[in-house]
Every structure is written in C-alpha cells, then in structure tokens.
C-alpha cells in the first residue's frame, strides 16, 4: 500500500510494505537550524594530578663494604576528580518547552603535551581533528594509560547543555616497606603520601671505592648531604579544545 491510511485509531504513511511513519510512533522533530548550538574552540583543562614522590634508599656500612644508592620517582597519588557538581555550561536549551532530544557532533583535539607517563606519551583514543558522533549525549575517554584515565561527557542537565569531565588515578602498588630512612633499605614518600610511580626523577649510586661517607644519599632531612632529587618536574595538566554542532528536538 502506498500513501496515507487511517485505521485502528492511527494514521500511517506507507511506501509499499514499508511504513514510513505512523502516529503510533514519533519522528525525531528537529528544531530549525537557527536553534542549533554551534560552538568553536571550547577549551577545557584537566588539572594536574596531585603528586608525591617515592624515595628508595639503600646503604651498606660493614667494615669491608661501604656503598649507597638512591632512586626517586614522582608519583601520582590515588585520586578521583570531576566537575559534576559544577559542570561547564556549553549553552542553554532553546526556550522551547518539550525538548528531549539532542544530536551532537564533536571535533576534539588536545592542544598541549602533558609530561610522559611511565616513560611514554599519554595515549589519546579518539580520532582528533575530526567530527565524531556523540549521539543524544554520551561520553568519550580522551586519555588512557596504565593507572590513569580522563573522560568527557556532553549531555542535557538542568536546562543546559553541559560538559562533564572526569579523571582518575589508580591506587599505589603494594610492596612498600620500612619507611625509616635510616634503615639499610627503605622506602619513603613525600608529604602527599604513597602513589603510583609515573616519572623517574633521580638516581645515585656509590660503591665502596667511591663511597662518600656517612650516608650522603639518604632522603633530605635525615642528615644527608647529597640526596636524590624529589622536586616535581612534571605537569600532567591536559588542555583539550572542542568544537560542537548540536541540534535540538523532540522524539516523544
């Protein structure tokens, strides 16, 4: 059957065996293009992680063997951060009652280079510099590596189209022992506590012929004269830029 029919309390518009439309359902009614939300160069920065350090120290001071070593790593402490309580507002919904459908295209790209994570650049799963479909609202993992991830979500919330961001760092490895830096073998950590080692910081070693004497490589603050460096020389803040093309409508 082709054309318009009225039966059983519904109107159907058919094309042969295919029903193009029925009043039993709802076409996705998009508002005219003048209501679209088109945004360019929306910048968002994921903050640097809360960090600490891990300080490995070992010393031998027997009569015949004198040697000492230290190695340090910058660590990222376990953390979960998001902006859900105060999301980034991209724009208000049109002042039209009944909007319950979005169609979202996003054009993402990272505009800086965070520090290497465990010796390598942080991978970015999305196709950058290309228009990607986010459906009626969805999420995208923008960065992911062992022990860390960042994501972005675009959706309707409270009468606005909002950008939700999230980042997370894993718990620290097991195996810490002896936090006393004067013990023969010791791990200590910075004021923010233990974390996941993510960037090598320093390394010193002196064997018996070159032993500096009196444990020079112990962690600073316990009488050492030449500790391994612990200052944070990393920056994991990540800048992303998005363009959006968002159409509004109703589907119910």
């Amino acid at each position, binding site marked *: 059957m*082709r*054309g318009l029919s009225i039966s059983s309390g519904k*109107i159907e518009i058919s*094309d*042969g065996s295919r029903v*193009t439309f029925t*009043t039993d359902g*709802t*076409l996705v*009614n*998009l*508002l*005219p293009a003048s209501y679209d939300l088109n945004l360019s160069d929306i910048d968002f920065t994921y903050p640097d992680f809360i960090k600490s350090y*891990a300080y*490995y120290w070992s010393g031998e001071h027997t009569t015949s063997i004198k040697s000492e*070593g230290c*190695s*340090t*790593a910058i660590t990222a402490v*376990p953390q*979960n951060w998001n902006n859900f309580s105060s999301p980034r507002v991209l724009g208000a919904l049109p002042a039209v009652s009944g909007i319950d459908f979005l*169609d979202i295209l996003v054009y993402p790209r990272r505009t800086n280079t965070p520090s290497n994570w465990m010796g390598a650049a942080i991978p970015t*799963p*999305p*196709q950058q510099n*290309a*228009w*990607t*479909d986010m*459906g*009626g*609202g*969805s*999420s*995208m*993992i923008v960065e*992911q*590596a*062992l*022990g860390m*991830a960042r*994501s972005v*979500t675009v*959706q309707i919330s409270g009468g606005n189209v909002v950008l939700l961001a999230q980042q*997370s760092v*894993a*718990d*620290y*490895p*097991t*195996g810490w022992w002896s936090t006393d830096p004067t013990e023969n073998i010791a791990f200590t950590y910075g004021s923010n506590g233990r974390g*996941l080692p*993510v960037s*090598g910081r320093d*390394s010193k070693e002196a064997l018996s012929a070159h032993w500096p004497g009196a444990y020079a490589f112990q962690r600073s603050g316990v009488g050492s004269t030449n500790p391994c460096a612990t200052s944070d020389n990393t920056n994991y803040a990540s800048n992303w830029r998005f363009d959006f093309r968002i*159409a509004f*409508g*109703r*589907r*119910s």
Partner: protein
Amino acid sequence: MTVVLMADTETGRVALYDEASGGGDPQNPNSARNAPLNSPLSHLDKIYFHSDFDYMEVSLLTTVVINHAGYPAASPPSFNGGGTAMGGNSGFSSNSGFAVGSHTANHLLATHGLGYIPRFKVAVNNQMLPPGFPVQSNAGGAVRAVSAYATTSQIRLREFGTAGSNAMAAQSSTYTVMVFGAQPSPSNNRLIDFNPSTGVLELGLGRWRSDRRYLQVVPGGSPFGLLMGRNVDLANGAARAVLPSGGFVDSVNPSLRLYLLGAGAGTPMQYNGSFTSAPSIQVQAP
C-alpha cells in the same frame, strides 16, 4: 485526542498534530484547537510532523563488514622509576600483560560524497556507536574500541586497541551506517501532494516524502540503542563503558596487579566503581 492533518496556504505550513485545547472552528487554521499548526514551538509535544521542522532524513543507508585484524598480547608492564641504584628501584612490576593503544587502525565505512559534514549514526549489534565503543574484548583483558567520524565525503572508523595477557583474535564486524542529509530545499509549491501513479505522498513543498526514511521512535521493527547521557565512569584509574542496550565493558583486566619490587599481593588496577547503566532510547529509520 483528535489527530489533525492541516495545511495553511496563508502561512505556507502543513502539520500533523494532536489538537490543542481551547476549541474553535476545526477548519480554521488560527483557532485555538489548531494552534500547533501556526505556533509549533509552543506545542512541540503535540507535533507528529511540521513543515517548519527539520527531519533526520536518511540520505545513505548501508551495511559494511570490517575485518578487524588480530593483535598480539602485551608483556606485563613495568617501570624503573628513577633507576636501579643499589639493586632496587622506585618503580613497579606487574603480573599480567597490558598496553594501552598498542594497536590502531583506520577503516573506510562509507562514501557519502555530500561535500559537507553530515549528521550520521553508525550501529553495530543493534547499538549506535558512542566514541570509543568496545566492540571486542577477551579474558586476557584486551579491548578493541572504535569511534566513527565524518569527513566531507566519507564516514570512517578509528580503531584503538588495548593489549592484554592474551592475543586479540581477528574479528569481522558488521556496521550499519546512516548518513542524514541536510534538510532538502522545496521541490514544488504544494503543501500536501499525493501522486497516484507513484503512490508517493509529499508534505511541506516536497521536503518530506513517504518514499524516504526518517529517524524515529516507533514500536516493532529493528531499532538501535542510542545513548542520551553519560555512559562512561572512571574509578581507580580505569574506565567502565556502559553500552546503549545495557551491559558494560571495563578497560582494565581484573587480574592485573602492580607490585613495588615484586612484594605484596599486588594492587588491583581494574575499575572498582558501581556505574552500571546509562540513559538510552531505541530509534530506527524504517
């Protein structure tokens, strides 16, 4: 509730709608009961079709099989931290293979040739792809995720694979591609037109036609799940992606553990949150 199909030659509008309250002459386009015709934005919830609105008309509908290549397992990751002074280090070792982004690929899904960036949807297994949709995973923690994107002439698929402790097998997946063209320009001067020889009904100056396909919510058929909100959550440095039609995939192998110098039971690296559902609707273009 009375459903009305009415055209107003004064305003050039045609609509199919539920009558509004307020009564009045049913044949008068400006009566209160016919307000959805000439004030559609104030009666969005009553509209089935309106010539003022844009409809997601399918300009290209195709299915394509992508042969995803297998990729090898990864070694258990380790990190030396600052170095191995005195036989130790400030890094970690692990017990299970894991490598993010060890495999990438890019595929052509369809050529639309429209000359502009269209709206589009790509579906697999009756679910429309959000970015980074996991299409395959295995017991060793490998995950293959895909994202569809558009150029002015093509719809393409980016593949991003994480390796686990077992090699990822090759897989052939069937993708349904829907490209939605821009709203057509008027093709005639008739608000309602039926051609008895072709059986085609046209509405709104020919911009809506019964011989085309339109995205809609309708019972029956073979719909696709379409996300309508957040579907990814992060916890313990790992991600969980909830799928449009239910279920979820975690980004990290639950057996992966990290050790500092190999001591202790090992710290689990998997997602440890409680996110299990995401808002979605069922849509199709019959």
